[in-house]
């Protein structure tokens, strides 16, 4: 009567559920941001002067630093998975901690950017460029937060109870998500800050 175990170990594709499911979810995330990029392209076409002028008001330096921070966190995320996969929990914790720190740093820098915009009286409703800017980076930031939560949870669990090597699949799935968040930023960065 132990049918449950038969499907648990059943992976017709050879890819375990968490990873497959995460990829499917990421496919949907691509389309989510595709909607925003589509809107951005259309609106930019219609309001090219406004877009150019407003984009020049953005702070490229800060954004470049932020890009570096996020790419760095991607690296440490990959490393932390690698460490756990190879059974090195100490290193896993170390790299995961760095990732979390980077993620918070990213959010911090982002809020600094927002705050300085608000202080210049620039809000989402200022014009279509800032509407897209705040919406896209805002949703990106939400995704960052959505990544931080499970990371902190994993780290906590590792500190309290220990995180067995067999859990590395979960870390990999989370890593996929985290790299995707990085990917989105890789496209957002030139789109919003550079191409004008």
């Amino acid at each position, binding site marked *: 009567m132990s049918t449950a175990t038969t499907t648990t170990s059943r992976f017709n594709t050879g890819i375990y559920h968490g990873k497959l499911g995460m990829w499917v979810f990421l496919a949907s995330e691509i389309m989510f941001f595709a909607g925003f*990029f589509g809107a951005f392209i259309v609106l930019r076409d219609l309001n090219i002067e406004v877009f150019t002028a407003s984009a020049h008001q953005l702070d490229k330096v800060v954004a470049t630093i932020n890009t570096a921070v996020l790419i760095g966190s991607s*690296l440490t995320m*990959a*490393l932390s998975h690698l460490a756990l996969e190879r059974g090195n929990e100490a290193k896993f914790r170390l790299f995961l901690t760095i990732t979390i720190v980077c993620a918070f740093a990213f959010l911090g820098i982002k809020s600094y950017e927002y705050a300085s915009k608000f202080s210049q009286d620039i809000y989402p409703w200022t014009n279509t460029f800032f509407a897209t800017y705040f919406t896209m980076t805002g949703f990106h930031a939400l995704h960052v937060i959505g990544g931080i939560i499970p990371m902190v949870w994993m780290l906590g669990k590792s500190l309290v109870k220990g995180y067995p090597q067999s859990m590395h699949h979960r870390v990999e799935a989370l890593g996929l998500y985290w790299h*995707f968040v990085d990917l989105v930023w890789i496209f957002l960065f030139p789109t919003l800050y550079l191409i004008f």
Partner: protein
Amino acid sequence: MASGMSFQEIQKSYFKVFLALMVLTALTVAVTTIHFGDVANIVVGVLIATAKAVLVAYIFMHLKFDNKRLRYFVITPMFFFIVFIFALTVLGL
């Protein structure tokens, strides 16, 4: 995953990718600060971003080593995205 490789080897390859990403980031910033003209700027920006994306997806996200069919999860949405953009920009709103 490239299971044949040792921890150190993989770690090294990750660092290489990271370095490449940083260089590419610096490159886009540098290149786009010199204004080439609207279209060229976009093309350069998007090309470099794509290169970075491919690196992340291939190495960090293991697409290079994993089941090849996983790539459809990226290709399919990208295809429809391109169709959408094509209809709205090239053909007109």
